[in-house]
């Protein structure tokens, strides 16, 4: 069993993942380890295999070869539902929130809670109040101050607030791993900062986070380790302590070989 220097076992481990589309090799034997309580950033140029890698981890793609280990046990995901059931939650770039529904409904979308007793079992009545309260607790526990009224429709929220809703949903149900795909891409400076704060809060609560981002500034501000994808392979794994952002970019573009 692989462990890191402190003897920890990875929460999520990918070994030699291969994914091809016809003659195009998107992933050419990629290894990845995610340890408890860390933020692992994945960077790479367009076409380097970032999205394919994420989709293999989140169940959207099934790898052609290689294995996935969750808590040391081999797993196989045939759908995003499988990965979700195993405790891996993904926040997609397009957010996957329903604009017309309110915050609480969005947090519980697809996982609604019914009332107890006959009302719930026979009449299928939703426990709206209970869900609202739990949504409020969840948001407070995550330290998200930008969301106040759980009955607000999501379409009334700013981009950063919507991101907060999506992240809160992932954190509420993602018991093991949270994957964030370009969470700051559509946001302004201040809102981007709030989302970064939210990411480090998640880590502080012990939830490991995989962060995909183009923004080197954000990556080097929040990540503990940086996985650099290049041409379908992992070119290097660096840390902000050992490498600067420009060195990471150099590895990413192939201008510099990983040391």
């Amino acid at each position, binding site marked *: 069993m692989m462990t890191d220097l402190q003897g920890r076992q990875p929460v999520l481990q990918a070994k030699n993942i291969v994914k091809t589309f016809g003659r195009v090799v998107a992933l050419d034997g990629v290894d990845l380890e995610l340890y408890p309580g860390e933020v692992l950033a994945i960077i790479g140029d367009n076409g380097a295999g970032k999205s394919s890698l994420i989709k293999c981890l989140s169940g959207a793609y099934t790898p052609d070869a290689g294995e996935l280990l969750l808590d040391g046990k081999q797993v196989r995901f045939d759908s*995003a*539902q499988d990965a*979700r059931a195993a405790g891996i939650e993904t926040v*997609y770039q*397009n*957010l*996957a*929130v*329903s*604009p*017309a*529904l309110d915050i609480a*409904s*969005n947090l519980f*979308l*697809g*996982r*609604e809670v*019914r009332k107890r007793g006959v009302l719930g079992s026979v*009449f*299928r*009545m*939703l426990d*709206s109040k209970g869900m609202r309260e739990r949504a409020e607790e969840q948001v407070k526990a995550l330290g998200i101050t930008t969301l106040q009224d759980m009955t607000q*429709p999501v*379409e*009334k929220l700013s981009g950063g607030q919507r991101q907060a809703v999506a992240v809160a949903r992932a954190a509420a149900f993602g018991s093991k791993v949270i994957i964030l795909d370009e969470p700051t891409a559509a946001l302004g400076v201040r809102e981007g900062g709030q989302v970064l704060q939210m990411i480090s809060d998640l880590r502080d609560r012990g939830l490991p986070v995989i962060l995909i981002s183009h923004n080197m500034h954000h990556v080097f501000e929040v990540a503990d380790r940086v996985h650099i994808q290049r041409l379908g392979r992992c070119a290097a794994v660096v840390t902000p302590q050992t490498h600067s952002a420009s060195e990471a970019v150099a590895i990413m573009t192939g201008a510099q070989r990983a040391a």
Partner: protein
Amino acid sequence: MKTHPPSATAPTGSAAAASPDRPDPADEFFREQTVAGRIQSVLHRYPALSPAVVLLASVIVFGLMNDRFLRPENLSLITQQVAVVGALAVGQTLIILTAGIDLSVGAVMVLSTMVMAQTATANGVPAIPALAVGLLVGLAAGAVNGLLVTRLKLPPFIATLGTLSVFTALTLLYSRGATVRGGELPGLLTWTGESFTVGGVRVTMGVLVMLALYAVVAYALSRTAWGRHVYAVGDDPEAAGLAGISVKRVLLSVYVTAGAVFAVAGWILVGRINAASPNAGTDANLDSITAVVIGGTSLFGGRGAVWGSLLGALIVGVFRNGLSLAGFDQLYQTLAVGVLVIVAVSIDQWIRKGRA
């Protein structure tokens, strides 16, 4: 929202800005915008509000124009005239909430009606199973529409345009174009035409059945997970799918439910015209869409409330009845309904523009 710095603290105090009795024209502009914005956001939150206001206003206006309008027998007549379209609008609302449309509404209704009637008369089946068979036919017709939309991925407009012709032809073939008169039908099938009187207003069972449909569907939409999924699928199917909702299953369930609702509307129709006629309900397709749209449900899906469609059906009923009492030609009624539809959709566009 832009704010203006108080003129007193403005570093370069120009004379015009400092003068308190000359309001900044820009201020007024922004204040106006917030009033409109506030109306927009209230309408956005309560989609049934604008039809409710329109209904109330039209009742008052027609009541003032003609004192016969508010008499109990006239009000009762309006509810009876509205019952069939009102019931159809329940199913149509469900479909429009998913950003679909159903053009086969009337055809499904009449097909189930004829099956009910023939099963009970020509085939001599007892009334209750005959009614059940009719409902099953509606359900099956809805399933056909639903499968065309979810499996063949046809746009709902095209799928139901096709089934409109298919179901209409099947109805005429099956019934050989013959009407079954009310006297031949068992009492259960014409029961929806029976009535009782409350405070001078005659209420038919058909109206009660229609209200029951509204109550059940309103409950399902607002209080169950299924209802939230219907809204979510209509709002953004991709997002709903990523959230773990089976979009196809929700869509299919909506079309099947709507089919059953159309069959119930057929039962109301039998009581209303005291017959089962293969030629009834030809206007029903567009009338049901009209009611839903006037009722504030968005054709883009995901926004609206089923009670709004009842208001929409009532508005159309009140306009037709009121204009006819006021002595206007029937063509003016049609014209007025057309204008209402255009206004309603324009308001919807405007409300949607204000989102974000």
